[in-house]
C-alpha cells in the first residue's frame, strides 16, 4: 500500500521522452589550451631573447677591463719570472724577494705561459693564476 505513490512516479518518469544529450565538442577547449601554452612559451622565448641581449651587452662592456686585467697579470707573471731567473743566477736581492714571497705563501711558476698545467716546475712558486677567460 505504501509503495503505490512511488510506483506511479516511476512510471511517469519512464514515460518521459529521454532528451538527447548535446555532444560536447572538445576541440574549442583544446584550442584554448593550446593557445595558452603557445602564449606562455612565446613569452618565455621573448624573455630569454631579451635576457640574451642584455648578457651580450654586459659581456661587451667587460671586454676592456678584462683586457687590462690580462695585461696586468701578464706583467706580474713576467716580473715574477724574471725575478725568479735572477734569483737562480744568485742575485741576492731577487733571492730575498723570493724568500719574502715564499714566506707569504706566494709561489712562482717559472714555466712560460702556455705550459700545460701539471708540468713539473723546478722548486718554484706560482701565483695561482687561472687561465684567462675567453
Amino acid at each position, binding site marked *: 500500500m505504501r509503495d503505490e505513490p512511488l510506483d506511479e512516479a516511476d512510471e511517469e518518469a519512464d514515460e518521459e521522452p529521454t532528451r538527447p544529450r548535446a555532444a560536447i565538442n572538445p576541440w574549442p577547449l583544446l584550442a584554448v589550451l593550446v593557445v595558452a601554452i603557445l602564449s606562455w612559451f612565446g613569452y618565455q622565448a621573448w624573455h630569454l631573447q631579451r635576457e640574451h641581449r642584455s648578457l651580450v651587452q654586459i659581456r661587451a662592456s667587460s671586454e676592456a677591463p678584462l683586457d687590462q686585467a690580462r695585461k696586468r697579470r701578464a706583467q706580474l707573471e713576467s716580473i715574477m719570472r724574471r725575478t725568479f731567473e*735572477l734569483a737562480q743566477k744568485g742575485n741576492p736581492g731577487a733571492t730575498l724577494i723570493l724568500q719574502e714571497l715564499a714566506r707569504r705563501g*706566494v709561489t712562482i711558476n717559472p714555466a712560460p705561459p702556455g705550459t700545460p698545467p701539471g708540468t713539473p716546475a723546478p722548486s718554484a712558486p706560482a701565483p695561482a693564476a687561472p687561465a684567462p677567460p675567453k
Partner: protein
Amino acid sequence: MTLGSRLARWETWVTVGGVLVLALVGVDIALFERNRGVQAELASRQQFLQQTAQLETLQRELINAIANLAARNNDDALRGILTEHGIAPGAAPRPPGRP
C-alpha cells in the same frame, strides 16, 4: 558547413598549434642553453677580474720591493726588470683603470 568538416577544421588548428608549441619548446631550450653559456662565461670573467684585483696588491708590493732593493744595492739587474716592463724605478705602479 557540416559538423564533420567543422570538426576537421578545429582539429587542424589544434594540431598546428600543438606543432608550434613543440617548436617553441625547442627554441626556448636552445635560448636557455645559450644564455646559460654566456652567464657561465661572464661568471668566469668576473672571477678572473676579482683575482686580478687581489693580485694588484702583490704586484705593487713586488714592484716596490724590487725598486727599493735595486736602489739600496745599486742593483742594475733588478732595476732592469722594472725598466723592461716600462716601470720607472721609484715610480709607484698605477692602479688599473686610473689614468
